[in-house]
Structures are given as structure tokens and as C-alpha cells.
């Protein structure tokens, strides 16, 4: 699944009539306007004022990645929901699939921070882990 997304992205780049794309750099508050000129796997970045901007621009052009954070329902929990995150960034294109999967999940208390909620979220190969602990209802009554 992960590879397929990568392929889709490449196809999009190849078929795009205008290979130039613009991003606002998020590395620091300066917020440089980056222009990325697509040349396969090694696009040229301009408009950046530092090396970090170049790295960001390339990554954002070739394969934008994002963290996904949300909440899942807890059965027997002291709280109705338990917050979760992807252990690392996933393909931006996979966000909504991940959110959809998270929405239908339930977890049983007790829950520990860092506990695996799903082994592989939306076929990304990335774990979904809890970011809030919930000792369960009986412990807090």
C-alpha cells in the first residue's frame, strides 16, 4: 500500500504539465516561499534561505508526510475517549483513510501511554499508539 502511494505520487509528477510547485516553508517563522522545479527524484528548490528549507521543500514535493492524531472510544474507561497518534508520520494521502479507521476503533481500559492501539494503520505499516492513559472506571470512582 505504502509503495503504491509512492507510485501514484511519481505518476502525478511525471504527468503534470507544470512541474513547478510552490510551498510555504514551515521550518521556522521566516516562512520562505519555496519554488520546487520537479526533475524526477531530485527536484531543484529555490526561494529558501537555508539548508533546512531545501530539505523540507524536497520532502514536501516528493512525498509529503504528516502525523495523525485523534481519539478512540474507551470501554470501561474513566474518560469516554483516549487520544492516539501515529507513531511516526504517514503519507499525507493516507490521512483520511487513517482517520476513518480510527473512528470505528474501540479500546478497553486500562490503557497506557504508548500502548499499541493498531499495529498497522491504513496499510502504512505505522503503529497507532495511545497518548493518554486511562486506568479505567473502577480506579477513579
Amino acid at each position: 500500500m505504502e509503495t503504491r502511494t509512492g507510485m501514484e505520487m511519481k505518476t502525478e509528477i511525471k504527468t503534470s504539465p507544470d512541474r513547478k510547485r510552490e510551498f510555504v516553508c514551515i521550518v521556522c517563522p521566516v516562512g520562505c516561499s519555496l519554488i520546487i522545479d520537479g526533475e524526477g527524484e531530485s527536484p531543484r528548490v529555490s526561494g529558501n534561505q537555508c539548508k533546512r528549507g531545501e530539505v523540507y521543500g524536497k520532502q514536501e514535493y516528493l512525498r509529503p508526510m504528516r502525523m495523525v492524531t485523534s481519539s478512540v472510544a474507551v470501554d470501561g474507561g474513566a474518560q469516554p475517549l483516549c487520544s492516539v497518534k501515529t507513531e511516526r508520520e504517514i503519507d499525507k494521502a493516507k490521512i483520511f483513510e487513517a482517520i476513518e479507521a480510527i473512528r470505528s476503533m474501540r479500546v478497553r481500559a486500562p490503557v497506557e501511554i504508548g500502548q499499541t492501539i493498531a499495529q498497522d494503520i491504513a496499510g502504512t505499516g505505522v503503529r497507532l499508539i495511545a497518548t493518554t492513559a486511562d486506568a479505567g472506571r473502577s480506579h477513579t470512582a
Partner: protein
Amino acid sequence: MERKADVVVIGAGPAGLAAGVAAADQGASVLILERDERAGGILRQCIHNGFGLHYFGEELTGPEYAARFIEQAEKRGAGMGRSSASFGAAGQSPATIEILSDTMALSLSPERIVTAVNGRDGEITVRAGAVVLAMGCRERTRGALGIAGTRPAGIYTAGAAQRLVNLEGYLPGRELVILGSGDIGLIMARRMTWEGASVKMVCELMPYSSGLNRNIVQCVRDYDIPLYFSTTVTRVHGRERVEGVTIADVDENRRPIPETERFVSCDTLLLSVGLLPENELTRGAGAEIDPVTGGAVVDERRQTSLPGVFACGNALQVHDLVDHVSREAETAGRYAAEFAASKTLLQSSRGADRLNMGKTRVIGSGGTRYVVPQIISESPSETVDLFFRVGEVFKPARLTVTSGGNIIASRRKRVMTPGEMENITIRTDQINGEINVHTQADAQ
């Protein structure tokens, strides 16, 4: 019920927890009063990541960041006290930190007597050696803006909506307009989009966003949500439920231009229009308040104009990074413990006067809106960090710090924006009179 503690902390959010831990590490007995049922404060509902890069050197979500400090507090004896008698039981060493949850602090006297109330103990009077004010801040509401129109359901502050979605599992609306591009508004634009709602636009009164660049890109641009600057909501429509809002462009004086008014249908209006430090206790006790920050006037120890009363976190000044809150709170907690341990000495002849009569005033000029701390006392350390904000965007900026008219620090910055708190370190041995943090545009 009457109690005593070396240091009483009001609030168990990130500021209160860090202050409590720092005070306990100085040997103080610490009592933290928390009105919610759990510790963690606003971080509990900030489930997105991006916290802790400065403090922990890694990116955490809000709940994870809070958990680190709760764990530190627990190591020093804290459980979330459902009963105030559950700590320091016979045979155990006395707890150094106790958190009293579901407990609302009602008043503070200049003599550091804190009155609080909860459903278990009734009224509680605590004699505090020192007090740390860490109440955080509140969101500005529709009432504060004076938006015209009807009063239907469907108008929320962004933080209230965040709590509903992230902690309670309710979606407050399906079609939204967000007014204000502060970080919480931006984060909620993404959150609501992820949960299937349609965010029609984010309107920002100012010609720039007060939110972080990263949030503008990753929460709004990523989802093609229009972000309109110099635009505001002038009217709310709908009887029972919001049916739409009127928006309008504003002129350079931020006055709506009537000819530009247009109707946008929506069922929900989220407001992310600023945060107000919560300082009823501070005012009630008679501490001097900075009219710009809305928080107490403090010295470099974060001591207010009342001896032994300290302030930190968003109750002192609205921060954009919790990492800075933690650091600031540690300073307040450490000096609060020191005050509690030595207050007999400090209240002697040199005593209260010395504390009250701050030696050096710190002011801002040019583009600088405010500086914290506002006073430098007899600083025991070699350097002092000054925190401040600018009132408009400078690209690039020249920052000059003078003391008694002499330049003691100067720096060029590529960009300074109102959304990012700035800081500059000065050496205390160079202080020689009033300190002025001046910001101006620099040559390109």
C-alpha cells in the same frame, strides 16, 4: 478546614505542575489546587503533536507532555487527591507534593491565605509560605467581540469545540466558519475537517495570522480552506441554530466596510479570537497588573508586587510554546520555595521593601508591545532572559536593548511577528538603569 503548606500552587496545568515540581525539589511541601478532576490543564485536550521540542528535544502530543510532568509530581508524592487526608499517612514519609483536584480557589489575601472549596472538604483555608499563581487563561468570547445578530446555538470558542471533539466525542457542527486565525482556530480547522465537517473559511481581522506558520500550512492550506485576512464576522443569523454569518472586509482601522458584506451559510461559528490571562485571584489580592499582558507585573523571579506571591504560565502572559511555560514555572516555583524557606529573613528590615521596590524597570518601545519580567530585582544570576512580543510584523527586524541609555544587546532578526514570543538574554552586570527593549524595522 485549615491547612498549611510551604508553597501553594493554584492550577495543575503545565505551569502549576512544573512550578510544584521545582518547589518540591527545593525541599518545600507543595499543595496544588486544581479545579478540574484531573491534572494536565488545557494540554489534556491538545491531542495534536508539536509540544516539547525545546524542553524534551522530541515532539510530543499535549497529553504526553502533561503526563511527563504529572509523573514527576507523582514521584514526589502526588496522587490526584480525592481526599485531602490520603497523603503523608503514618509510616510513610510525608508527601512533598499533593494535588487537590475538583477544588476551586476562591480568594487570595496579601498575607498569602488561600481560600478554596470542594465537595469533600467544604471550605478550605490554607496558610501558604509562598503562592504560585498558575491559573492559565480563558478564551475571548462572542460577548467580548460584540458581534451583532441573533443568539442561536452553534457559537463556540475554538477551545470549547476542541474539548467536545477530542475529550467528549461530540462534533459541534457540520458546516463551519472560523473567526480568528490563532493556533487553536487553525488546529480546529484541521480537526473538524478530519472528522468530516466542512470548514468553509477562516476569517482573520488582522492582515496577518497570529498562528504559527506550520499550523497555517498543515491545518488550513493542506485542506484548501480559504484563509481571508482583514476580514471579520459582522452578524450572526439563525433563530434556534446558527444558519449563517455575514462577513465583511475591514479597512486599515479594522472597521468593517459595509459594501463588502456578504452572507455565508453555516451551522457553526468557532471563535479563536484571543486569550485572556485569568487573574481574578491576582487582582483580588491587590497585585499590580500589566495592562498589556493582562497578567501580574513580575520581577525576574516571577514574583509579583506582593511579597511571596509568584506568577507564571498563561496567567502571567499568553505563551505560544508550552516549553517556555515549563521553564518560566520552574523559575517561579524555585523562588517560591526559597521565599517560603527564608521569609522570616526577607520580612525583616530589608524585607518586604526590598522585594517590593524593584530596582530596575524593564520597558518596551518601538514595535515592542510588552516585556516580561517588567522589573529586575537584585538578580542572583549572571544573566536574565527577557520575553516579549511585537505588535506588528517586522521583516527584517532590529532589536536593541539599552540600560540607562547604553546599548547592552543588539540583534538583527529575519522576521518578528506578533504570533511568536521572542526572548533575548542580557547580562546582569551590564544593567545600569532602566532597561528598554526596542524593536524597529531593519534595512533589507
